């Protein structure tokens, strides 16, 4: 492939910006294309869109779009429990919820934006994702009833179990790191 100069020459014009690339396949992604797909949100808040949403707005969205699967108060059933379970994570049967377990509130925004509701993912507006995230955090007693979340306030939320996690990786049980 590398030695395929004739093939490479055909693409010289197109690939001018790939001067140091070894193969030069693919093309430059445009900022607009990237913006459309770049939906992840990091703990420092990077990736959070403009917009805002309150607990109160979130309650209405939750009742309409989430409660059927996650229970009226996030108490679960039929799908994952989203709230409660405080203090159970070291019990024999831990209840891992957003409030009892998740280390970052930004993860909630990220996940709801990309994957929920299960039957209509990526259908919520940024305002709706902020609002429903605020409501789930309220159900977990992490934000007060009058909370409003946006790109500034969401990353500042301290999750109760934040210190429990280690991102160190390697084997859990004696096997050497590959």
């Amino acid at each position, binding site marked *: *492939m590398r030695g395929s100069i004739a093939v490479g020459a055909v693409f010289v014009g197109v690939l001018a*910006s*790939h001067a*140091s*690339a*070894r*193969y*030069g*396949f*693919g*093309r*430059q*992604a445009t900022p607009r*294309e*990237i913006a459309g*797909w*770049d*939906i*992840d949100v*990091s*703990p420092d808040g990077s990736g959070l869109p403009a917009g805002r949403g309150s607990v109160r707005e979130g309650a209405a969205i939750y009742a309409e779009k989430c409660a059927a699967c996650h229970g009226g108060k996030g108490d679960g059933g*039929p*799908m*994952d429990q989203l709230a409660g379970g405080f203090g159970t*994570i*070291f*019990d*024999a049967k*831990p209840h*891992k*919820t*957003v409030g009892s*377990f*998740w*280390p*970052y509130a*930004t*993860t909630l925004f*990220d*996940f709801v934006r*990309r*994957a929920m509701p*299960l039957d209509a*993912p*990526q259908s919520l507006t940024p305002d709706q994702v902020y609002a429903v995230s605020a409501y789930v955090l309220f159900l977990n007693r992490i934000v007060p009833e009058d909370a409003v979340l946006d790109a500034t306030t969401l990353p500042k939320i301290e999750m109760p*179990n934040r210190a*429990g*996690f*280690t*991102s*160190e*990786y390697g*084997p*859990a*049980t*004696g*096997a*050497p*790191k*590959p």
Partner: protein
Amino acid sequence: MTGQDPKGEGLAASSRSLRQSPEPGSVTRRRLFAGSALLAAGGAVAVIGPSPAGAEADTNLPPDIPEWQIRPGREVMSPPYGLPSRYEGEVVRRPRAGGAPSPTRLAAVSTTPLQNLVGITTPNGLHYERHHAGVPDIDPEQHRLMVHGLVERPLIFTMADLTRYPSVSRIYFLECSGNSQTWGEPKSELTAQDTHGLLSCCEWTGVPLAIVLDDAGVRPEAKWILAEGADAAAMTRSIPIEKALDDALLAYAQNGERLRPEQGYPLRLFLPGYEGNASVKWLRRLKLGTAPFETREETSKYTMVMPDHTIRQFNFAMEAKSVITFPSGGHRLSAPGFYEISGLGWSGSGRIKRIEVSTDGGRSWQNAALQEPILPKCLTRFRFPWQWDGGPATLASRATDETGYVQPSHEALLKERDARSYYHNNAVQSWHVASGGAVTNAG
């Protein structure tokens, strides 16, 4: 009858007893046909299916001429994409018995019928599944892979672009980190499919991720990569850059054909030896960053609660493990005599070095024969000759990999961590053979 036999209980062993019997006629044909598709010991596959023709089937045996010999069979290409014999209908993926059933089949698992397979290859249609929002129906012409973040050149690739790169084919296992939920009291009715079926092994073909990343130009600050799927869950995992530059593949083919939709068609990440969830299917985006991206799959799921109350977020490599697949839960040995114990060993850290088998509940161990090829991060088939005296026996296998790591017993694993850690249960698996020949899960 056998059509409703979910455990594959009529067994290969019945055909074996037939073959070994000094008087074949002493085992009735009716009994033979009551068996479902099975594996015989000895590595050969004895296909014993339900008889479609009922009593008439008897006329297919010597000295009569079988009915399939007295007229031509099907034409070529019927169907164009070949399917297993209709007598193999029991060899299918199944939900995992023994745990809480998933409330939705969109976010659920299905398991590989290990107790029915031989060798190391998982047929594509039997590869285990774990989807988070169903299987998308992706037009490969319209599929794109975007590589951006901490790179010199953010790039977009078509499938045609990606398949122009130099390719490699390698045989690797894939195991879900939630395989083997066997922490508690053993449920005797479980099969190897239930206990270990979130495990498959295929030849994967694709372009080494390192080559594509090199074209994009990795910035020195880049330490982690977010991999994102094009499914309705837009599944995401954070991948350490060392793995991406080591043996990671952008895979587009599986066992010689394009990926199955359930395995990420048209493109998946494949991270050899890592827990299955990290090999993101339907891959649409790779974003390079400085830190883990803290996705939902790194919070309530795929993390391990340890006895010291730390929660381990990243548990990538699957530890050395093995399981006897014949005889295993649901099988029945029909008569004392010779059986070949056979099973699989694997390690996310490299090659299998040794598999030991115990037929006395772990009191004594002997080396099994390893079938070549013995490849890194790949299933290795082992075999062990056994004379069953007809009495109760407990069979178990234990793997050692090339790093010297030895698969732990349940007790040893439980000393290090317990069911709260949930994932990465690689404890020794035992099967109990009762004096009547019934084989059940002994945990």
